[in-house]
């Protein structure tokens, strides 16, 4: 029996789950591959609480689904995440355009023990950083981010 995939979901991934977007086909593709446990953090939820209002009121459904345990909250406080991300800030901020919250998400994913990182970020280096830190990234990382991940691994 295949092992359940434990995956950290970025806010843009949850957006494409609750709203139909150009990326939603990838969400369906992931879902069709079998069961998975989706992990979120308070930083991800904060992003959702802002971004979801840009397209409707689906944040209400997300909050309800959290209570219904459709997702696992990793349970780290914002302060925990910031303190734990200190080294990541220093290591990656000078080397790519990655955002502050993105590094908090990657830190949360690693600390919780997620194997997968679900994100549609592009051009920021977020997915490349996740890959450089040995998370499996979905959708699959393309050449540009793969090259960046290689460089990021080398420039520690």
């Amino acid at each position: 029996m295949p092992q359940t995939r434990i995956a950290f979901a970025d806010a843009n991934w949850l957006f494409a789950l609750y709203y139909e977007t150009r990326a939603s086909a990838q969400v369906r593709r992931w879902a069709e591959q079998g069961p998975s446990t989706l992990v979120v953090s308070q930083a991800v939820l904060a992003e959702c609480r802002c971004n979801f209002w840009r397209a409707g009121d689906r944040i209400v459904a997300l909050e309800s689904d959290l209570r219904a345990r459709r997702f696992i909250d990793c349970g780290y406080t914002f302060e925990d995440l910031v303190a734990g991300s200190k080294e990541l800030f220093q290591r990656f901020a000078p080397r790519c355009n990655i955002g502050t919250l993105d590094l908090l998400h990657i830190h949360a994913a690693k600390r919780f023990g997620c194997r997968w990182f679900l994100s549609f970020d592009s051009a920021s280096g977020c997915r490349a950083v996740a890959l450089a830190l040995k998370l499996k990234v979905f959708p699959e990382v393309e050449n540009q981010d793969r090259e960046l991940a290689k460089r990021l691994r080398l420039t520690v």
Partner: protein
Amino acid sequence: MTEHISLRPRRPGLKAELARKARPNINAWLNDLIERELAAQPNDWREILHGERPVASEEAFAQCLRPE
């Protein structure tokens, strides 16, 4: 065979609080708690894909993709 799990409390005072709450046997209390949590399977998030899912504009989605 005995297996051990170490726990690092996330805040000061948690250990004392746990000792008070979990009397008389912290080990049994924690084991019960873990078994309950493991038994409580999360609902399947994939059901969301079968419910109401409004279409978002490209602009709204693009804003989610910007580094924050």
